[in-house]
């Protein structure tokens, strides 16, 4: 089954003061990540200090929003009951082009078509009051 994100009524993101710019950018259709001004490495999830070099000079920068599927699972019995309407759906860990990894759900793809190594790009979808970066085949 393909996820119909618009039909979802699921637990929303829980932004903090540190992460709010990420979610605000998602609303604009942009994958905004942090990048360390000292060691140049990209950071996800957002935080107050670079986990690589402990610099506190983290800048926000738009990412390519492209990556590859590191691994995935087709969820038949969701851990949260609100996702049951979407099951079976596909959750994946994405290797972002910039280096960090993030978890998301795959949309625009049948679960049986998911593959490790699949090239994907972000697709921003409104779910309730927030816009979430799901991922779809890069095509």
């Amino acid at each position, binding site marked *: 089954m393909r*996820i119909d994100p618009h039909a979802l009524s*699921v*637990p*929303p*993101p*829980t*932004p*903090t003061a540190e*992460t709010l710019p990420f979610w605000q950018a998602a609303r604009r259709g942009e994958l905004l990540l942090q990048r360390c001004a000292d060691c140049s490495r990209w950071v996800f*999830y957002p935080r107050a200090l670079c986990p690589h070099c402990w610099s506190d000079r983290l800048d926000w920068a738009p990412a390519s929003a492209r990556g590859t599927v*590191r*691994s*995935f*699972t*087709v*969820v*038949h*019995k*969701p*851990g*949260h009951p609100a*996702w049951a309407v*979407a099951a*079976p*759906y596909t*959750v994946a*860990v994405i290797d972002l082009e910039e280096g960090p*990894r*993030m*978890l*998301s*759900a795959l949309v625009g793809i049948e*679960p049986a078509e998911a593959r*490790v*190594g699949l090239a994907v790009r972000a697709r921003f979808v409104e*779910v309730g009051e*927030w816009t*979430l970066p*799901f991922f779809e085949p890069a095509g």
Partner: protein
Amino acid sequence: MRAAIVGVGEVPPQRSTEGRTTMSFLADAARRAVADAGIGKDRIDGLLVGPQVGETPQHVPATVAEYLGLQPRMANVVDLGGASGPGMVWRAAAAIAAGMAETVLCVLGNHREPVAPRSPNRNPIREFDVPFGASGANTAYALLKTRHMAEFGTSDRDFAELAALARSNAQTNPTAIWHGRPADVDGILASPWVAEPLHLAEIVMPVAGGDAVIVTSESVAAGLELPHAPVLLTGAGEMVTHRAMSQAPSLTTGPLKPSMAQALAQAGLGIDGIGLLSLYDCYTVMLAITLEDAGLCAPGRFADWMRDHDLAPGGDLPLNPNGGQLGIGQADLAGGLSHVVEAVHQLRGTADGRQARAARSALVTGNGATMSEAVALVLEAS
């Protein structure tokens, strides 16, 4: 740092616990361990407990001590998920060596509520996993299995072999939740998908229960009239690498690898010197990766390795002879301590009906969160 385990207790796992509390399970486990050691409760002067999502989120050591009528000189929470139990044993040894306490009770347990309590706010997982449909451990460990299969070409049947072994070994253990209900590989594979490629029978059954271990110094142990020979802690290792599965450094090897290497080095043993494996098995894939990380076989080759060994209680290298958590059920955090309790029984010869042949040394592991919290112990017969 060496120490002696002089008593163990395990409350038989059970699915429903109406009318009982988590505190009562902790008390039950503690009472069994003290009776097993043949000591009075007043000898306990150190207490290590786990976090509790439900009844007692804060001041856990004081609450447990008060309930049990103890006044420990050292009390603390060990919060390493499924690695908490083995982590307690090492911390007990360290506290004893530092003079903080002489005899430490390590105890974990839980009752079961009809609807499991949800953890409170758990960012970043709550913020960056849950909104995308990834709640709970099943999704995380399914990601491990997919990657293992893609990287090494391992098959669904390979992983099912591990679950079938657990079910088979559990038939030697009347307290196991799957006792009387063995399953072969086809039976495992016939169980429904939970998070594909994970089948239901590759996942531990949640149960209520409790486990307790009493740790003291070798010199104190030598002065006690113990009903059972003490089992010695001769090596330990620990590592914590991440929290959310998306942040794991690797999906095919984990922090148990350096932890086990350190534990074996401290004990002065190679993996070939280990006679018993008591390895944390929340999911088949976790057990597979642990076998590979232990150096028992090359990465990706656990199934070949299994075919070369008899892993039953009477075999050449018993693996979780009591059935492990895949066989007995997972009593929440106590599940991690159950691997210590089983190793102690095997090493001192009190594993009724499932006694391994003359094992003198055991490798014990604990694993918490998303293959992120790891503790390994080497235990040896005295």
